[in-house]
């Protein structure tokens, strides 16, 4: 060790003392505490989007709706990417993906590939074999890899997410449910209930979800899965949502009068002589989206010619009321409609808006 010159000793001592005092002062402080969590933002030129721990929509119906909020934030992040961007979805924290959310995730990715030409890569931890299996069987892997997608309805295996237009694949799907889910024991009455409900739901997508699009652009995504002895049947569209289209339906005022008479009176008071379109903004601020969905699910309340429309809701509700343990969920815009078999529906506002519309039945299998 080199011997210090005697004249440098006080200076060195002062520096050492200062360093020691500084260390003592900062002992309880954290560096970079205002910078937030450090996360990697890109890998191989792909922007990383982290999937949440639970990808789930059903918590929207409970007091703690945090998993719903996290799921919608995740989907919003995906939707906010720029055209032709490369995205890496990291599922390292994800422990559970539930049926309806899986359908929504598939549709979101499918739409981003078509509309924005997004290139996807993804990673799932090796040890999470259940999630790997789910993403594979739903065809999300194939979708992100842009592989050829064909559907095999003549196989007992779980069906992937199916996408189509109008009543495309509806009969194939019903054949599958009859043969493989109900093992050919479904009676003709039940077959009609299922057939009517699914046909009317996809018909409603064509009619109400995409009012300004051509027939070939009225796309839906469907998931039919058996989980824990329950049949989950969910149909999703990326349309404008029920609350936005219901107010333009010919049967709207009759149903409003019958179900929400006070609001009807208010509307009538301000709208004398004005066209319906002119007081839609008033309705939007005085009626929740859940109430609007509830109106869309009401039976005919008048005997007007225009009441022929809006019939699909009866078919959709019938499937729930006629099947053991039936539950109906409808998410659309900022509203949730939830109806268990034989009970009145529950209406709930959503803290974070839903993108598109999802209609789901859960049915107990005997």
């Amino acid at each position: 060790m080199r011997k210090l010159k005697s004249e440098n000793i006080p200076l060195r001592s002062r520096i050492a003392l200062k360093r020691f005092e500084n260390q003592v002062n900062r002992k309880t402080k954290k560096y970079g505490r205002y910078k937030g969590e450090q996360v990697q933002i890109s890998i191989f030129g792909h922007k990383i989007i982290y999937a949440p721990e639970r990808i789930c929509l059903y918590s929207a119906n409970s007091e703690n709706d945090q998993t719903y909020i996290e799921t919608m934030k995740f989907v919003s992040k995906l939707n906010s990417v720029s055209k032709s961007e490369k995205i890496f979805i990291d599922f390292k924290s994800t422990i559970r993906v539930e049926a309806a959310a899986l359908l929504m995730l598939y549709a979101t990715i499918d739409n981003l590939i078509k509309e924005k030409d997004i290139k996807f890569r993804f990673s799932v931890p090796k040890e999470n074999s259940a999630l790997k299996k789910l993403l594979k069987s739903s065809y999300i892997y194939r979708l992100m890899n842009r592989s050829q997608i064909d559907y095999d309805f003549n196989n007992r295996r779980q069906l992937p997410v199916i996408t189509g237009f109008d009543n495309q694949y509806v009969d194939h799907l019903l054949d599958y449910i009859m043969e493989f889910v109900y093992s050919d024991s479904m009676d003709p009455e039940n077959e009609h209930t299922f057939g009517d409900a699914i046909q009317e739901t996809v018909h409603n997508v064509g009619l109400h979800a995409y009012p300004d699009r051509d027939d070939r652009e009225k796309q839906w995504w469907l998931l039919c899965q058996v989980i824990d002895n329950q049949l989950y049947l969910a149909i999703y569209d990326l349309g404008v949502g029920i609350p936005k289209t219901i107010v333009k339906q010919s049967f709207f005022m009759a149903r409003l009068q019958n179900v929400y008479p006070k609001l009807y009176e208010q509307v009538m008071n301000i709208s004398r002589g004005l066209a319906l379109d002119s007081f839609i903004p008033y309705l939007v601020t005085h009626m929740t989206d859940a109430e609007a969905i509830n109106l869309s699910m009401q039976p005919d309340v008048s005997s007007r010619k225009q009441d022929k429309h809006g019939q699909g809701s009866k078919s959709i509700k019938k499937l729930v009321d006629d099947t053991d343990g039936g539950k109906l969920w409808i998410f659309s815009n900022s509203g949730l409609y939830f109806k268990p078999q034989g009970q009145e529906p529950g209406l709930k506002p959503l803290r974070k808006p839903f993108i598109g519309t999802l209609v789901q039945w859960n049915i107990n299998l005997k």
Partner: protein
Amino acid sequence: MSKVLNIVKDFSPRPYGRYPSDGDYCGEIFRKTLLAPMLKSALQNNETLIVNLDGYNRYGRSFLDEAFGGLIREEGFTIEQLRNHLCYKHSLVKSIPMLIDERIEAAAKSTSGGA
């Protein structure tokens, strides 16, 4: 005397939808091309038209409403004429003729021509 119209054989094995925008086998096309002309002929000849719905169990409500309810709303038949000259049956699914009954009743209430 009666005439029989078999939807599956004479129209389509898989009818679907309400309007032509839903496809060629929708309720409106069925009504305009087969159901209404045959019912008119049955009325003129004082016969009964029997619509056999067998062979398909998945009729959607929109198809049935547009086809049968449309007879009153769009074609100008009265509910009495339908009661006297139209018969419909499905041998396995009783709820299908019941649903047609319901849509005909609703159509009759919605028009002044109905009973």
